[in-house]
């Protein structure tokens, strides 16, 4: 209880409670959908950050892992009747395996090679998805896309009429992922990832098998991206290769994480929250200009890389510390 009395603890708790309480006040399915999508992007940016931020290896092809998760669970559900609740795990594993296979040969190289490999792989995967209409007897839809059979309200198959369960589902996934990232950050893996990001030669000299550590990060990141893909599939219930596996997905994730603050636990999530909200607003206000939000994201990335390379999280940290200090001083006065 004494710990809870400090603003350092009760403020995050309050914030999380607020997130859980939001659906009590927001009833419109449209806004609930947007809120779920905002959390989805925050989740994706956080997942990407494990390899792109912590390990500092620029992956520009996370769309492939999102698609791998989404298609795996959806096909297993449509043709074998396996519930997406299990499919979520299997989809994550398939995506993780893909992340491992892309990373294994390329993470030994330095610099842009990994980034190039991820672009090449994701594009290849998108083209395959676009041009494959069947896997054996299973229809995947190719360029037309794949519709997930609608069952109405079927919680056991992760389908809901209301948007509220989707919101809670992604909120829980997001919070779990943030906790995992916090744990990574403070563990041996986190120290090793930081070391190799800051100076790979120095890391090697300290006995760190940098290739293996990078591979662990890439695999974990792809796994969580795949899990996110399954959620996306259940929310949208329509998979289109270009939208899910293409550069729009891959690049957007990277933009959010960079603007929010690469390599920090909460930065990418913050980027996801703020930018997606801005994106939604511009979509409503300037609805005749398609893709304006992507243009804005691009502009923000350029501005942040030049002027605030540590990202939005820097502002939040300042604000946070001020608020905590203020509250602590006030409590100090009360006690006195």
């Amino acid at each position, binding site marked *: 209880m004494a710990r809870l009395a400090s603003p350092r603890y009760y403020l995050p708790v309050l914030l999380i409670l607020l997130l859980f309480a939001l659906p009590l006040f927001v009833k419109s399915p449209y806004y609930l959908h947007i809120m779920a999508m905002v959390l989805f992007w925050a989740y994706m940016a956080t997942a990407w950050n494990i390899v792109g931020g912590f390990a500092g290896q620029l992956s520009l092809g996370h769309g492939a892992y999102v698609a791998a998760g989404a298609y795996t669970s959806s096909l297993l559900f449509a043709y074998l009747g396996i519930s997406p609740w299990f499919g979520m795990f299997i989809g994550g594993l398939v995506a993780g395996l893909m992340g491992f296979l892309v990373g294994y040969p390329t993470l030994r190289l330095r610099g842009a090679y990994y980034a190039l490999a991820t672009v090449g792989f994701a594009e290849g995967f998108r083209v395959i998805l676009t041009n494959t209409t069947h896997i054996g007897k299973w229809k995947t839809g190719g360029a037309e896309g794949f519709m997930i059979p609608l069952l109405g309200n079927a919680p056991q198959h992760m389908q809901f009429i209301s948007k509220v369960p989707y919101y809670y589902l992604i909120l829980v996934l997001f919070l779990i992922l943030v906790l995992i990232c916090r744990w990574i950050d403070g*563990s041996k893996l986190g120290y090793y990832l930081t070391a190799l990001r800051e100076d790979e030669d120095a890391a090697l000299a*300290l006995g760190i098998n940098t290739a293996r550590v990078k591979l662990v990060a890439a695999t974990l990141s792809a796994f969580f991206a795949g899990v996110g893909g399954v959620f996306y599939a259940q929310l949208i219930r329509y998979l289109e290769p270009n939208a899910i596996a293409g550069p729009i997905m891959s690049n957007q994730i990277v933009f959010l994480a960079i603007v929010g603050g690469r390599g920090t636990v909460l930065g990418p999530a913050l980027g996801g929250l703020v930018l997606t909200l801005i994106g939604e607003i511009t979509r409503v206000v300037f609805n005749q200009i398609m893709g304006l939000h992507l243009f804005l994201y691009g502009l923000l990335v350029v501005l942040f890389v030049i002027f605030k390379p540590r990202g939005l999280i820097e502002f939040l940290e300042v604000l946070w510390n001020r608020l905590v200090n203020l509250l602590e001083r006030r409590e100090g006065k009360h006690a006195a």
Partner: protein
Amino acid sequence: MPHRALLELRNVTIKFGGLIAVNDLSFTVNEGEIVGLIGPNGAGKTTVFNLISGVYRPTKGEIYFNGENIVGLKPYQVCQKGIGRTFQLVKPFGNKTVLYNVMVGAFLHTNNTHVSREKALEVLKLVGLHHRKDMLAKNLTIVDRKKLEVAKALATEPKLLLLDEVLAGLNPAEVNEAIEVIKRIHRAGVTILLIEHVLKAAMALSQRVVVIDYGRKIAEGPPEEVTNNPEVIKAYLGERYGAARN
């Protein structure tokens, strides 16, 4: 003290294209010794360190550590065998604290953050950097950066420590301070091979020195003997014994 060879280089040669950077070099470092590797600029000293630590693979020759041929091992494997090294151009993880930097090294023998922190604090006390543990590495002065570089390597608990010009760029007072640190590390049971350009310091520290020039060994022996060797004087002072270079 038994003269057991901890490190042994046998006829080690490396060529970069047409350039022979290290030429048929053989020497040993015995357990418990401090050996100095000296030579003029460009003699190939750092290349020798890079060969030992696995950054380069020799074109010819073998390197034995604890009786085991370590040629072909990756740098991280060499470190895991028990050889720590520092870099001439120090490589701190600048955006992290001193303690964080040293903990990275200390994680080699544990997965536990608490154990790693205790080990790191112990090492920081040994090198005299404990009072700076919460400072960001990039804000350290040059002498503290050098100490941090040593502390990181030391945290991996090496049997042999390769020190690459840790005294370069320090003022005389700092050199003395650093020498004391090196002696303390040696007393703690670590064998040391050091590259030094500051000859006086190298002579004061080393029980034995190996002199190389153009990648070849030109002399080896106790410091006072080596300084009187005509070939060494020639290598350092030039053919006509011109102005002192250092």
